[in-house]
């Protein structure tokens, strides 16, 4: 029997689009409407890992095993570890995060999520300066000037501009695109830049300098700004600051162009200061363009459970947090981690070679629906149902709004929560707790 699920949520990017229609026929998804190409690909599904697998030697082939064997092996591997890392989490729901944090606490492990290679530096900047932000609904209804800085939503968040920030009509923005000025600041002239009213091309790694020049101009000290800063002519910067000051409601969205270039969190720190200072003239908000649909949710759950958003070390018996010391890549590159559980994230594909080299040398258990680069460095692989498609639960959109995901189809494999609960119970037994 064919049924249509309306107003379904997309479990891919931080836009968490909630207007998706999914066509289901005999517990199989046969069609997706309204989603972007990326969301459609995720919901329609790809080749899955069908059964748990194990191997002692990472150069040998996997052997199919039962869930019982794989869970026993994973629990033993983690219970024997002195410095375990539990990493990933962004493609899983908050209910999974909660179980993961309990396991980390039980073992005295370190738990970190994919923000570490995404908006981790943004979290550090928020510690310093706070975050003058808003919901995406406020952007839709009010923003007349929209800035994308080091962010390319045409590729990374394909429906952001359509649903929230540029093309959509809002309560006070009844003209839609014609009522909004769009500015893109980037190193490359991206597809998003090509659609903008103004493109500000910065020299790679010069964002901090450009933001500082803008703050000087904003505070009435244009005289100290040289003719060109970070590859941008002073004239263009003065015009840009005037546009931002003249906005009725300005929304600044930033991406990896700021978090991953040389100044890392200091870029965001500076951009937040610029936003705060613009509020002396008009209303201005700033928001990170979160990548995975629930990377923000891990930050929420980890914050309310441990006091810290990510990179939490339980080795001392109480949560300790110091990215640079306790973040996943720092641990792997120091060769400190002696076992890892990678869940709902792909460290094998998205970490630098040195980190993957260490993962290839230590025992690794992977919990994931899909075969990916982490599978290639794993000893134990436990396939699970896809959160947000086969499992219901809560996720947080990039603006911090929580949304409830319903199941689209019934799972045919164990869920992350079931697997984590069983591993935790067995780890407790093995540790004699």
């Amino acid at each position, binding site marked *: 029997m064919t049924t249509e699920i309306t107003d379904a949520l997309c479990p891919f990017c931080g836009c968490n689009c909630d207007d998706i229609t999914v066509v289901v026929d005999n517990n199989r998804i046969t069609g997706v409407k309204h989603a972007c190409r990326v969301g459609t690909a995720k919901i329609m599904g790809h080749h899955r890992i069908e059964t748990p697998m194990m191997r002692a030697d*990472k150069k040998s082939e996997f052997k199919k095993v039962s869930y019982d064997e794989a869970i026993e092996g994973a629990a033993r591997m983690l219970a024997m570890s002195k410095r375990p890392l539990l990493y990933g989490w962004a493609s899983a729901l908050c209910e999974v995060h909660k179980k993961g944090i309990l396991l980390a606490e039980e073992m005295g492990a370190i738990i970190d999520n994919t923000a570490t*290679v995404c908006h981790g530096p943004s979290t550090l900047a928020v510690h310093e300066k706070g975050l003058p932000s808003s919901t995406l609904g406020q952007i839709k209804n009010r923003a007349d000037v929209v800035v994308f800085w080091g962010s390319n939503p045409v590729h990374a968040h394909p429906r952001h501009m359509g649903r929230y920030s540029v093309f959509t009509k809002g309560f006070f923005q009844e003209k839609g695109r014609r009522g909004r000025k769009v500015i893109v600041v980037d190193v490359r002239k991206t597809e998003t830049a090509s659609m903008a009213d103004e493109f500000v091309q910065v020299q790679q790694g010069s964002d901090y300098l450009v933001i500082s020049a803008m703050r000087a101009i904003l505070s009435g000290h244009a005289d100290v700004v040289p003719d060109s800063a970070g590859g941008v002519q002073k004239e263009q910067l003065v015009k840009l600051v005037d546009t931002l000051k003249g906005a009725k409601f300005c929304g600044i969205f930033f991406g990896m162009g700021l978090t991953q270039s040389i100044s890392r969190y200091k870029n965001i720190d500076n951009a937040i200061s610029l936003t705060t200072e613009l509020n002396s003239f008009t209303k201005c908000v700033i928001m990170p363009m979160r990548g995975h649909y629930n990377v923000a949710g891990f930050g929420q759950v980890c914050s309310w459970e441990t006091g810290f958003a990510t990179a939490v070390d339980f080795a001392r018996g109480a949560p300790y947090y110091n990215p640079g010391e306790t973040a996943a890549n720092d641990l792997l590159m120091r060769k400190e981690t002696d076992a890892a559980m990678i869940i709902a994230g792909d460290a094998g594909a998205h970490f630098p070679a040195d980190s993957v080299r260490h993962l290839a040398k230590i025992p690794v258990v992977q919990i994931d629906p899909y075969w990916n680069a982490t599978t290639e460095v794993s000893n134990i692989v436990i396939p699970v149902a896809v959160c947000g498609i086969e499992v219901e639960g809560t996720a947080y959109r990039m603006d911090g709004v929580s949304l409830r995901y319903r199941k689209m189809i019934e799972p045919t494999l164990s869920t992350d929560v079931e697997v984590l609960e069983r591993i935790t119970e067995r780890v407790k037994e093995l540790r004699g707790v």
Partner: protein
Amino acid sequence: MTLKVNLITGRTIDQGVTIENKTSSDYQEATAYCELNSKNLEILGKPGSNVRVKTRYGDVVVKLKENNGNPDSIAFIPMGPWANAVVDPDTRGCGMPGFKGIPAEIEVTKDKILLMKELIARYK
């Protein structure tokens, strides 16, 4: 001929579409390439040629592509295992490796592009 560039990595829509299908040729097609503008590209060869991208952290063979949105001497590789073979692992004390702004050299090669499985096998 060797071209010195500043390498940046990042998302693309095709990388997103294939991200949960990393054993596929579509994923390799979407991520194992390096973009240069036409002026820089002409120095090396034609679009579709294989090039070796070398940094002090490693080297990788990818396909050459043209993108005139790139300024001179900026090379772009989509995020993924091929890009991460050559990125800067230093987190500068804040947890984030250097995925953008890596000095790199690019030269044409006859070597083939490794499959994802083969690329990761180099680390074992």
